[in-house]
């Protein structure tokens, strides 16, 4: 009975999809020959594909609902997630894991080409961006769709200070971070009262404002033509050729990633980190427990923005050319996807999310035109199958050797 109903629904859904996609997949107009091709076989594929995907999803949902709900089984069903949790919770395995990752990171540029190293450096930048946004979205629960603005602030800080005052990379690195953090506070003030959708819209607007200013205030930012000849990061006045410079930037990014993970991890495990999570979980209860909502939110905004600013400086130094087109809403969406895909609030998750989302399209060049489509599809699938992200956060547990029996599990 239920089965028949589901089949009927699946049939209707697939017909609807065929209808929706009809103009794209079936009709093909050849303007030179002035002929129209009707690719009926595509409609058939679409119907069969949708039909089976629909049934698959239903089947999965059905199985999920019928499973006895136990608190932990639900969380770590994905093999990769439970595997990584197990590795990270065991000190010996964790050190081996870290050792392997470190070894790979060190030898990577020596095995792979300059091009690959460059791609990896970009991915590492997104790791740091993701970790920054993770503070705001994953920990404090503030949906920020304008994160790219802080990235732009960092990049333009370096370009402009270098252009006008000749300041070097290392001088500007902290300045860019701090300036972005200041902008984080500036954005934070007006949106303190907002939550959820409203916050998302305002931050989205903020991101666009920054980009539009950069685009239109030609005297200040050189407008759409951008700023070129930005110096690469230096090392005590040494001069690198291009290849060495790529290598150097790569290692800088590795160090930055390590520093970021270290700091974010400590923040997360601190009194401040707990306050962020409490704020995410229940704003009113959080205030009633004596947490200053304004302060906590502003700190989250500014610390998140700080990392974006730092990466912005790195970005300008790496590409040696920036213009406002690098800081569109798409960037914010990608960074947000990294956080959501990886697992909100989970550092390991965000690292994986960034590597997957940035490296995958690079290596699957054929797919790269469909990047946005893939994003959409991945995110929709994640919402359905794994709302907590690839690798959910490991909850912190505390041990009391002296006073209590170990937690029974």
């Amino acid at each position, binding site marked *: 009975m239920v089965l028949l109903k589901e089949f009927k629904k699946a049939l209707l859904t697939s017909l609807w999809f065929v209808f929706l996609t009809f103009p794209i997949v079936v009709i093909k107009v050849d303007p030179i020959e002035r002929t129209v091709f009707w690719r009926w076989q595509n409609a058939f594929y679409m119907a069969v594909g949708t039909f089976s995907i629909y049934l698959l999803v239903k089947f999965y949902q059905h199985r999920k609902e019928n499973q006895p709900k136990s*608190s932990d089984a639900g969380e770590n069903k994905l093999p990769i997630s439970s595997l990584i949790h197990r590795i990270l919770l065991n000190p010996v395995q964790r050190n081996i894991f870290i050792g392997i990752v470190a070894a790979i990171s060190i030898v990577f540029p020596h095995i792979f080409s300059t091009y690959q190293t460059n791609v990896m450096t970009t991915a590492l930048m997104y790791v740091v961006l993701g970790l920054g946004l993770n503070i705001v979205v994953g920990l404090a629960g503030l949906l920020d769709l304008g994160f790219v603005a802080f990235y732009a602030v960092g990049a333009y800080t370096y370009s402009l200070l270098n252009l006008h005052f000749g300041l070097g990379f290392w001088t500007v690195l902290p300045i860019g971070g701090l300036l972005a953090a200041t902008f984080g506070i500036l954005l934070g003030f007006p949106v303190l009262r907002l939550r959820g959708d409203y916050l998302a819209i305002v931050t989205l607007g903020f991101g666009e404002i920054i980009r539009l200013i950069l685009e239109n205030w030609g005297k200040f930012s050189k407008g759409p033509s951008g700023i070129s000849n930005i110096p690469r990061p230096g090392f005590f006045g040494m001069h690198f050729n291009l290849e060495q410079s790529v290598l150097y930037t790569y290692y800088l990014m590795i160090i930055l990633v390590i520093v970021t993970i270290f*700091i974010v991890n*400590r*923040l997360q*495990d*601190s*009194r*401040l*980190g*707990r*306050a962020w*999570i*409490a704020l995410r*979980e*229940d704003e*009113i*209860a*959080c*205030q*009633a*427990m*004596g*947490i*200053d*909502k304004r302060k906590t939110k502003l*700190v989250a905004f500014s*610390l998140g923005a700080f990392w974006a600013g730092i990466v912005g400086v790195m970005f300008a130094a790496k590409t040696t050319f920036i213009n406002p087109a690098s800081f569109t809403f798409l960037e914010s969406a990608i960074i947000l996807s990294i956080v959501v895909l990886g697992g909100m609030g989970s550092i390991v998750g965000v690292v994986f999310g960034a590597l997957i989302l940035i490296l995958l399209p690079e290596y699957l060049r054929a797919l790269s035109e469909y990047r946005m489509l893939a994003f959409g599809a991945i995110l929709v699938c994640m919402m359905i199958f794994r709302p907590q992200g690839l690798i959910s956060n490991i*909850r*912190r*547990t*505390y041990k*009391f050797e002296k*006073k*209590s*029996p170990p*937690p*029974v599990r």
Partner: protein
Amino acid sequence: MKQPILNVTNLTMDFGGIRALDSVDLDVNSGEIVALIGPNGAGKTTFFNCITGIYQPTGGDILLSLPNKSKKVSLKGLKPNKVTERGLARTFQNIRLFPKMTVLENVMIGRHCRTKAFIFGAIFRTAATRREEESILETSYAILEKVGLAEHANEFADNLSYGAQRRLEIARALATEPLLLLLDEPAAGMNPQETLDLDHLIKQISQEGQAILLIEHDMQLVMSLSDRIFVMDYGKKIAQGTPAEIRANPAVIKAYLGEEVDA
């Protein structure tokens, strides 16, 4: 020797045209358990929301006496977190825990306003920060033991049973070291055994010197616990007195049982 802790005078709260609180006076002395009762919609929760800064009252004053000081501070116009810092801590009628934090972390949040570590301390884990974290852990764990939730310390709060969640709310409020503990219907939805446990817990806390203001519908619990009772109806205080006085008060009986009593 009983000293006043909380003095609320003429507290008034309007929601648009509706007067949810109408010149309510209430006071709590140190070491006392005071109950606030009244039919649903009488304005009891609104009273809590006003004195804890979640709503800004339209009129009246809320004075808190700090221990060892003759001066009283007004809580009116303060933000909720400032009120908690001053010494009022509350639970919620509809449980408001942090569901995806562990039981222990929920209590640790309560320590927030009594501790200081910030960005710098968090990143560099200075000796002071480490000591503070340790003391937060110890205090929180001790409170969990007191309310009987220690063995659930590392579970998510939303995995607890209903009664345990209510107890965790009390634990979290206690962690802020309040001068006055406000409980909004702590026994709501509890089974008789859980209610009995709660009765013991509240008595135990009270014996340690904690002043408590309690909203509750379970009359047996109210009569067993309270030193004094305030009764509200339609936003007004209609009676106050000892449990015995309240039981015999015709206005209270009328409010609870309706007009038929007179007939």
